[in-house]
């Protein structure tokens, strides 16, 4: 046994009041739990740390924490953590050719089967990085969809 991690259990949930009723219990309902707000699917939610400047124009900077939900199906415009050619990369998912304008633009909110979809582009939030057209030659998966970005400002 080593490096075991300690997690606090909110008193009202711990189910440990064999003796005294806890006076704190009455107030627990009113607590705004950030976990509940930021994590829709606890079993599928992981976190990532941003490295580099690929999303600066989207307001995501180095050091920010990403809340990543692996249960979600990628949709047009989603910010996603992709695994491409041996590295995790933060990209916008697009099913339309950015060179051609929006002629074959899919409807927003419609979900696409990423594996069945032949045409897929990964866009960054920084003009320095060109769009990547995913072909069968790429070692590529969508690892998870970013649902929140946590930024430390102080």
């Amino acid at each position: 046994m080593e490096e075991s991690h300690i997690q606090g259990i909110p008193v009202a949930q711990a189910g440990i009041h064999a003796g005294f009723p806890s006076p704190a219990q009455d107030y627990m309902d009113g607590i705004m739990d950030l976990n509940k707000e930021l994590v829709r699917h606890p079993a599928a939610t992981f976190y990532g740390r941003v490295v580099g400047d690929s999303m600066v124009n989207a307001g995501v900077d180095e050091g920010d924490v990403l809340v990543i939900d692996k249960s979600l199906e990628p949709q047009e415009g989603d910010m996603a953590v992709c695994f491409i050619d041996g590295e995790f990369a933060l990209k916008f998912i697009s099913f339309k050719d950015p060179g051609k304008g929006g002629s074959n633009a899919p409807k927003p909110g419609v979900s696409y089967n990423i594996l069945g979809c032949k045409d897929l582009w990964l866009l960054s939030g920084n003009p320095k990085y060109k769009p990547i057209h995913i072909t069968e030659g790429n070692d590529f998966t969508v690892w998870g969809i970013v649902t929140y970005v946590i930024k430390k400002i102080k």
Partner: protein
Amino acid sequence: MYALVDCNNFFVSCERAFQPQLEGRPVVVLSNNDGCVVARSNESKALGVKMGVPYYQLRESSNGSRVEVRSSNYTLYGDLSRRVMGILREACPELQVYSIDEAFMVLDGMSLDQAKDLCRGLVRKIRRWTGIPVSIGIASSKTLAKIANHFAKKYSGYRGVCVIDTDQKRDKALELTPIDDVWGIGWRSAPKLQKMGVNTALDFVQRPSAWVHKHMGITGVRTWQELQGDDVIEGESHERRQTICTSRSFAETIPDLEELTLRVSDFAGICAHKLRKEHSLAYEVCTFIQTNPFRKDLPQYYPAATTRLEMPSSNTPQIVAAALRALESIYKEGYQYKRAGVIIANIIADDAVQGDIFDTESELREKADKVSVLMDKFNSSGSNMLRIATQRPGHYAEGIRREHCSRLFSTDWNELIEVH
């Protein structure tokens, strides 16, 4: 009807979940102290890497440079296990967690088609949500569900779910199952049975029950019945308590950490003793302390914290160390504590642990277990004659080698995946 859910090459799959570059490559995970191989990917198995082979031998072998090696990262595996079990429990409230990577779902009141649909959906969902591939075997008894699971894992045509629902399928499966692969047939009985001409599970069920009783006793008969599809193994985790709690209110109030440490050590020791008496092991040790709620004139504080053990344990030094680590994380000066307690949770049967080749770890634990048994003997008179000299947390971690350890991707803010 039971469904046995088993994670494929679990430790390796956990490593791959956060290191997708390991997909399709030969990977092994080493025991504590980087001693020997305790988990292998299918690619490593295909290369002929054997379970339990010492790491130095693997390194010097011709495959040594081709195999990706990772030290065991139980914190990571424990977290992913918790997620997988959480998804299963949501789908099937009657879940019997058997080990870190295995659980039985009780699927009573469901049609076979419903069960199949549920399980196929779960294979996809768990893979997608957690990155962990699982296989599921469905049958009318636990022992048969184990065998079905084995087939689901072995043949990709099943796409993760294999059902044994007819006599023909059962006999075919039993015929293809060597007797030493049957759940409940120990390594000592298998050679004995083979000598008497029982080589497969089918050979075994074709013997009369009197013969089985004569050579294998009542547990053998139970396995024999289970293999025919009769459900005779009691729901283990049903009989087991979900939690064990030891707590007291103090006659006086206690403000200082030293005195609380002594009390909490005692409570943890009592819990560990109860665990051993029930042949159980626990994953979680929770410590709580409380001020007196009737003294409104004094500041109130009711904290609790849980330490999760990397490997389930019932031995006193480990349980005490875990309880004290939790205590140290919640204790604050300036309060008059009136009550404290230790709760042991996430309890499993002590024969459900697969860590028997965890070399140094198990040696350490054996020693500690002997100490625990001695303590039980001395303390049975009711007075706690023998106590643990309370140690500083982290004591056990010193000197353990982990040269190839991956990060705590899912449990430590400083070790998250890096996204470029």
